[in-house]
């Protein structure tokens, strides 16, 4: 068999609204591409074994664990990382603000992953229950064990998002 393992692949990915053209070796993991090639170090490497969720980003709107995907697979995709949440003027995303207000972080290591995992909950037609929130972040570990405030923060953000979308205001 003739294989060329070292061959670089040219990929185009949109990260936080900005298009990037890059040459990547196939074995480059998406999380390393984001952190080392693009310098977006807000996405953390925790367990590196698909367990902890610290590396969560959204790909085409769905949260995924970026330690378990190769960058080359993201070719043509649209990625949002934690750096893409706040407004360019520094105004926090409602989910970030809720984590601030509800003390949803202690050491902060899991926080980017928690936020990216919880993001789809803000778009649901119905406000999620606490049980649904816990299920949604069940792939994200907080070793400070600060789950109660994390759930409270997400509930607060989803409540506000839902109220703002309600027809009666």
């Amino acid at each position, binding site marked *: 068999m003739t294989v060329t*393992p070292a061959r670089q692949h040219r990929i185009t990915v949109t990260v936080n609204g900005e298009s990037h053209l890059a040459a990547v070796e196939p074995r480059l993991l998406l999380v390393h591409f984001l952190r080392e090639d693009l310098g977006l170090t807000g996405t953390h490497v925790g367990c590196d074994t698909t367990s902890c969720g610290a590396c969560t980003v959204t790909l085409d709107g769905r949260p995924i664990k970026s330690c378990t995907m190769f960058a080359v697979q993201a*070719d043509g995709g649209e990625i949002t990382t934690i750096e893409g949440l706040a407004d360019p003027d520094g105004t926090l995303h409602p989910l970030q603000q809720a984590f601030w207000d509800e003390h949803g972080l202690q050491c902060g290591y899991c926080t980017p992953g928690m936020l990216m995992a919880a993001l789809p909950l803000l778009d649901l037609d119905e406000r999620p229950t606490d049980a649904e929130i816990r*299920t949604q972040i069940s792939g994200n570990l907080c070793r400070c064990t600060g789950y109660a405030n994390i759930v409270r923060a997400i509930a607060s953000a989803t409540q506000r998002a839902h109220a703002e979308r309600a027809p009666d205001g």
Partner: protein
Amino acid sequence: MYPAAFEYVAVGSFAEASEQLARAAGEGKLLSGGCSLIPLMKLRLAEPRLLIDLNRVPGAAGIIAQAGEIRIGALAREADVEASALLAASWPILVDTSAVIADPLVRNMGTIGGNIAHADPANDHPATMLALGARFLLSGAAGTREVAAADFFQDLFATALGEDEVLTEIRIAAPPPGTGSAYLKYERQVGDFAVAAVAAVVVVADGRIRSARLALTNAGPVPLRAQSAEVALAGLRVDDGAGMDEAAALAGDGIQPWADLRGGTAYKVDLVRGLAGRAVRRAVARALGHHELSAAAAHGGPR
């Protein structure tokens, strides 16, 4: 953790994937969700020289009703199986099964075809497929063939797939009237593999169980049918809960689940006996159109 270097190709069709497998001569691996393969590569337990990415094959992730069957593309994500209204209405056991695999983030990547073709005895879909009597479409250079789930799983991580074959579609007969189905899994924590899990499919008529099919996850090197339980369940009245528990408990006879960190053999056998009864009761309740408490499934105890 970096995998060993490999060549990567994203194919545009299953035929092309098959050609690439042939070219790799045993050193190629198919990539779908990557949830099992990529961790294995990072640990260098797997070092394929060629990675064949199926994710760009068009039309390979559909979930449709056609020709009296439910047809699920091998690339359907677990999250899409979990959210499918068609499956919730026809074979809710598939929704049950996908919903207890790993966690929601992994389910956004993981595919039903990958879960089946990887043939890990701890994976959840194989037992469900066995209970459903599913058939798999395998496509290779010699053409496409259909293999029953019962013939597909051959040993630990070993399947009927030929060296150049790709699992492309799962086919399941539409449920006959009076059908109910459920998958019940007991795990130590979210994201873990099953300590034990039971797939149950029943057909109910005139207040009695007409037929039952039970299959077990992680009770042996391949998913196992629990035929003595199936025979004992047939004919029982649907309100005979104690009878159902007793008959379903036969699922623990003759199995030899290995002892590991998740428990000893005797404990796991006992767990199978208990889970089987609950899975059958849930399947029967669904066959009768009863509503259920989904919260009970999400918190504590078996999911």
